[in-house]
């Protein structure tokens, strides 16, 4: 088993003159699950994209079974037995699972013998415990099932080395275990799995060995059994980390957001929120736990004024603001950090200054009679950059040059600039590294201490339990109950997330 399968030697790759990988070394044995651990921007995905044939390294070499190979395309990589499952899936929604799997294969040509293929792929799926209906069309599948299709695609192409880029980022807690079981069964057959991650728990659970990357360099490769979470964290961040802790307490009795009996439709015209009620008090963090896709997105949009309700009412600071316009809701003191920070939060080609004033550009403090004073705005932005410790090339450079963590800090800075009464944060730490996660969580706690109400939507139960003063569990657009994070068990929340009411 301990036979060396892959060697990446002195891989360097830079973009725009900035090194993403700097002489990185990676040794992987066959039949092992190897975790590639590092913070965002450590160069994990770049390294794996090199291995998957997507990027050409500036220098360095790749050896498979001791033989040097040159990869010029993903097809090339697959021919060499290397396949990668990316974070955003590459599937055709209107085709069936089977059709997606065989799509682009040279060996499958002309008229498809679908019955035979369905059966074959079904068998394949069973072998690795990848539960998915080969006849189902992809748009009908959950995210977890789509991921299984991506894995099937690679296995069907007979890859020996499967690379998974942050596979659990999109999964519900319930979907993680089956995935890990499948990965283990693949490794059991002698295949090799590389899993990119920044979650220490995951590493400790699934990996055989771990390679830590930091700042584009390979720091160390260690056996899982001979290391600890603390040691890994230290190698990953390069310093000790302190966990953010909430001084738990109940907020005041003053409600900042009161939602009663709200119903709303999703984009497809189906019920997304049905008769939903809850209240966020000033000075508390109310966590919303739930499997993604149970109405969280629509809830955020309703609270932001971007989606109209069919029934029920919404009070902000005791004022009825049901179906008010976004601008009115902003002016009432509601700040929102949206789920999709790049799609809904930031304009990537615009500068930090321009992104900072998105919600306040119309404010008399930022313009005089419709004219900006850029000098004054620049000073304001410089202050924000200092206060929130945002790393940037320059405040007039496009924010797409900033890392995800700094983008998120900018978003939080923007939303808390005017001391909001209510801060809504949807999946605020998704995809962030430890450092940025700590900073973002601290901002939420500071806002709470200041007296704002915080509505924290997350699927990370650890985060919810650590930060929230109360947790409401959402399922199919309804609140299943509100629990006390101090006493509730994870199992109980898990059951409620699956639709069991709080007794």
């Amino acid at each position, binding site marked *: 088993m301990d036979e060396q399968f892959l060697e990446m030697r002195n891989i*360097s790759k*830079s*973009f*725009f*003159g900035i*090194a993403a990988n*700097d002489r990185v070394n990676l040794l992987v044995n066959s039949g092992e699950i190897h975790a590639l651990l590092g913070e965002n921007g450590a160069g994990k995905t770049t390294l794996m994209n090199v291995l998957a044939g997507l990027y050409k390294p*500036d*220098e*360095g*070499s790749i050896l498979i079974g001791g033989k*040097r190979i*040159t990869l010029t395309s993903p097809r090339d990589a697959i021919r060499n037995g290397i396949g990668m499952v990316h974070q955003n899936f590459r599937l055709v929604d209107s085709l069936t699972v089977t059709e997606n799997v065989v799509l682009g294969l040279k060996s499958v040509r002309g008229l498809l013998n679908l019955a035979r293929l369905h059966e074959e792929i079904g068998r394949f799926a069973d072998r690795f415990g990848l539960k998915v209906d080969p006849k189902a069309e992809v748009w009908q599948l959950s995210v977890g099932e789509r991921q299984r299709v991506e894995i099937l695609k690679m296995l069907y192409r007979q890859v020996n080395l499967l690379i998974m880029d942050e596979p659990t980022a999109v999964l519900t807690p319930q979907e993680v275990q089956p995935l890990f079981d499948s990965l283990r069964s693949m490794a059991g057959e002698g295949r090799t799995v590389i899993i990119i991650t920044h979650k220490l728990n995951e590493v400790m659970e699934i990996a055989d060995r771990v390679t830590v990357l930091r700042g584009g360099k390979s720091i160390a490769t260690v056996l899982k059994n001979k290391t600890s979470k603390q040691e890994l964290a230290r190698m990953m961040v390069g310093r000790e980390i302190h966990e953010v802790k909430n001084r738990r307490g109940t907020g005041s009795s003053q409600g900042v957001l009161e939602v009663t009996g709200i119903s709303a439709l999703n984009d497809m015209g189906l019920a997304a929120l049905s008769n939903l009620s809850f209240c966020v008090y000033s000075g508390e963090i109310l966590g919303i736990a739930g499997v993604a896709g149970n109405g969280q997105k629509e809830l955020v949009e309703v609270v*932001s*004024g*971007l989606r109209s309700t069919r029934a029920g009412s919404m009070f902000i600071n005791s004022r009825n603001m049901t179906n008010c*316009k*976004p*601008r*009115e*809701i*902003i002016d009432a003191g509601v700040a*929102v950090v*949206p789920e999709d920070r790049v*799609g*809904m*939060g*930031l*304009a*990537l*080609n*615009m500068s930090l200054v*321009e992104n900072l*004033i*998105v*919600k306040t*550009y*119309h404010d008399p403090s930022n*313009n005089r009679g*419709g*004219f*900006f004073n*850029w000098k004054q705005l620049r000073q304001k932005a410089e202050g924000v950059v200092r206060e929130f410790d945002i790393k940037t*090339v320059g405040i007039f450079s496009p924010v797409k040059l900033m890392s995800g963590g700094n983008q998120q800090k900018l978003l939080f800075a923007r939303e808390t600039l005017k001391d909001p009464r209510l801060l809504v944060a949807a999946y605020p730490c998704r995809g962030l590294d430890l450092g940025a996660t700590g900073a973002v969580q601290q901002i939420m706690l500071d806002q709470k201490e200041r007296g704002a109400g915080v509505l924290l939507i997350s699927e990370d139960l650890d985060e919810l339990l650590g930060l929230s003063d109360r947790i409401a569990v959402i399922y199919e657009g309804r609140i299943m109950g509100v629990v006390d994070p101090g006493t509730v068990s994870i199992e109980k929340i898990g059951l409620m997330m699956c639709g069991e009411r709080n007794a």
Partner: protein
Amino acid sequence: MVNVMRDSDKQGWRHFIRIEKRLDVPPVAYVLVLLLSLLLVILLCGLVLARMGYHPLEVYKTMLGGAVGTPYNFSETIAEAIPLILCSLGVSVAFRMGIWNIGAEGQFFFGAFTASLAALYLPSGLPRVVMLTVVIVAGFLGGALWGVLAGVLKTLANANEILTTLMLNYVAIGWVDYLVYGPWRDRAENMPYSRLFPSSAMLPVYPGTSIHAALLLGLLAAVVLWVVFKRTTWGYEIKLIGENPQVARTAGINIARNILLVMLVGGGLAGLAGMGEVAGIAGRLSPNISAGYGYTAIIIAWLGRLDPLAIVLVSIFFGGLNNGGYALQMVGLPSSIVTMLQGAILLFVLGGDTLMRYRIRFLGWRRDNR
């Protein structure tokens, strides 16, 4: 920049080319690259011309002479640039918001129509100031109406503005055709154009040239737009919508209202161009008041990177190109040479632009010995 390529391939020689984005491009580079691109166009088209049996230098000399050879010719170039400036500024406003308004030609014609309507049907005895004001405002409103029409279709029915603005072009051109061949036909000369405007409806012209007062409107529009984009909240809204409409929505910006506004302003500017051609040059409504200004405007807007002041300069350049073309026709050469030159310029300038913003690093042939 650490990436000195080290020898990295034992099997043999390899060829390395890399494309990288440049972070800082000095402004002077833009000018240099532009000049270099133009030089390449001249060389390449010169080869084609020589192959066709013309003497390239003679052709270029004729063109240059036509564009700037004499003070009069230069004044003609400026006059030719007036409709280009107004139309290009017009389309650039919508482009900045990510709205593909390619209907400047139609807005131009409809503005020409409404300006003519005012000039022909208002009592000719009106004081000139009143008359001209009404004619100018009518031209703006006509173009604005034509632009807003496509905007309304987009905001109400989500109709693709590329299709609607393009199709409305044909409607406006057809409408002007109908008028000049039908009810507005000049009875005295029995030709397909309207009767002449009263002199009170004619724009002031710089003596001895064809440069008319719409030039001032164009320059004013350029300066105003420059300030709008640089300094104002409205310019910011337009940019934000263009960059990320979702973010604009969450910021509470009314996108529908802004679509109508940019189509109104953009259409109005193109309408002013149409007004200028009838009330500043032709003195009557006729079907051949446009040399495709509304379409050339799209090219100019992009070559000028949607920057109002750059658009003015590029417009003057294209005005010269058009006039050079007329000069070619005068000596019996095919005017399609100009079309070829315009195409080549677009290709080379945009190509040079890309090369300027991206660096292609040619790393030579290297041998590996690891």
